[in-house]
């Protein structure tokens, strides 16, 4: 099966001169369709930098990134914005919903950015909220939603327009145990879509059981990869790749 996202030998140098830091030191990573991959590592290990590069927000200093059939390196900022608009959905730690828009409007905003016709957006937003079991909160503003509900709206927003890659940055960090589980269960469910791959950056060991693959990063390098859960036809229940 072709990876849906493929990063090869990614190097990211931050700062310059005496303040220069090599945040990533030749990272290679693949996201497979229909899988949820967890990226774990201590603070300062380069998780967020890698996520930013995989999401076409930062450009790598060296290495290549491919999303689907699109090369994501060497693009202008508008070209990168176009690529992430078409192929990448984000779920942020602090939700990042627009506070002046309702839950449904937040989803419609993402749809409009992805070029969905205006007349179709309300229906698609409605379905996306149904998918995360929040249809009854469609007209609520973020300030009236609980943390778990906000994160589910954020997931609905990331799903809007059916991007092939969803990148989630610590999606359970601000949630209690029950909501955290609910969000991970939802992401795991979403990952079953064969046209989509999900990468979740997390510190939270409670999320391990939801992962198909686990990648460990330390000091800007991948130090471990493991298959946590067998997909139908894979054979072994759990196997370490390295």
């Amino acid at each position, binding site marked *: 099966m072709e990876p849906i996202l493929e990063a090869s030998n990614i190097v990211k140098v931050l700062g310059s001169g005496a303040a220069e830091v090599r945040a990533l030191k030749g990272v290679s990573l693949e996201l497979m369709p229909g899988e949820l991959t967890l990226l774990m590592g201590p603070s300062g290990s380069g998780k967020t930098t890698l996520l930013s590069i995989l999401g076409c927000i930062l450009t790598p200093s060296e290495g290549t990134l491919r999303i689907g059939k699109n090369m994501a390196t060497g693009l202008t900022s508008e070209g990168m914005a176009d690529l992430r608009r078409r192929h990448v959905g*984000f779920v942020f730690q602090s939700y990042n919903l627009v506070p002046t828009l309702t839950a449904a409007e937040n989803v419609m905003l993402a749809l409009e950015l992805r070029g969905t016709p205006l007349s179709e957006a309300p229906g698609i937003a409605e379905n996306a909220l149904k998918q995360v079991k929040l249809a009854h909160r469609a007209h609520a503003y973020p300030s009236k939603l609980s943390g778990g509900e906000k994160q589910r709206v954020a997931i609905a927003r990331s799903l809007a327009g059916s991007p092939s890659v969803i990148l989630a940055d610590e999606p359970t960090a601000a949630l209690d145990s029950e909501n955290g589980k609910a969000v991970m269960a939802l992401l795991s469910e979403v990952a079953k879509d064969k046209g989509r791959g999900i990468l979740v950056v997390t510190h939270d060991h409670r999320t391990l059981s939801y992962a198909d693959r686990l990648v460990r990063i330390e000091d800007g390098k991948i130090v471990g990869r493991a298959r946590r859960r067998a997909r139908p036809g894979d054979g072994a229940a759990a196997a370490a790749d390295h």
Partner: protein
Amino acid sequence: MAAAIGTSSAAPKAVPMARKLAYRNLFHDQLSLFVTLVGIVFSVVLVAVQCSIYLGSEFRIVAVMDHIKADLWVLPGGTKSFDLPVLLPGRERHAVLSTPGVKSAEDLVVSFINWRRLGQSSGSDKTGCSSETGTCGTASALLIGFDIATNKTLPWDIVQGSLADLATPNAVAVDSSYFKELAVERIGDRAEINEMQVTVRVVTQGIRSFTTLPFIFANLPLARTLVDASVGQATYTLVQVAPGADVEQVRKSLQARLPDTEVLTHGEFRQRSLDYWLFETGAGSGLIAGAVLAIVVGIVVVAQTLYASTKEHINEFATLRALGASSGFIRKVILWQAVLSAIMGYCLGMVLAQVVIYFLRDILPIVMTFNLVWGLLVLTIAMCVLAAVSAIFKVIRIDPAVVFSR
């Protein structure tokens, strides 16, 4: 309680999100919106009043000229404005009439006069003259003498009497807005011009001069007598060019025949009069400078509040960028905010400006025209869009990676 969206009718309305976001952001920061609107309203009111005074001044400066039909004006050399008159040497009309291409010519006498107020026999005390026979001082005025047989457009807005009444001996027309200054209040009231008694036979309403001197209209022979001009002498000779004749050619011919005078087209003399009062005296420049200053103040206030509002929403804009929003989409949100602010500020400002203009209408030359109303709307929107530039620069340069550091 939030409503369910089980049916499509309950689904959110399909409004472009850039516009919706701009509207919501604007009303979310109500204090910021208030400050923005105060800035715009201040600017709109000031610009509207300044421009209205400018237009009102223009209107009054050329009010009489605009009621005179003439292709060419023969005037004493160096005349700066219609209402700064000097008499021509005399008999220009005959020279004009004998020039090829001229259809008709008529004389116009314009002259400063001293209007000697007299007590009125009616016994009314409203004029300020308590003595029935005594005088009550003098007032300066501008006498306009014209041929009542040929000129049917002066004076206009007659409310008492008729143009034909100016044919009666010593008849003059005055405007009711100058009654108190001229110590008259009705048809039949008397005054003296150059020791010659005149009687009010026609009353107009709303004919006011830019210089504040009252206009006194009289027939041409009486005007010549009152200013001690000889027969055939005038201040201006008004020329109508024959159909098919070239105005420029006729002007050259007249100029050659009358070398001590100036021959100007109606438009040229009108513009010269406007330029003199509006720019040579500095009156118009002051008004324009005031309007420009108001626009600058408006831009600064709106720019500051829009910038502050944008900074307050910077994380949302960063999220939009992270979600893949193009620069164009972000620009659209901020520009919509600017345009919505402009429209709200303009509406409030114009209401206030109309109130100010209403109260100033008897004190100052002030006119609000349809073109000015629309022009100000365009100007206000342009002002707010210009003010949005700094906010747009701030947002366009935002690094979407900040969304991961929150």
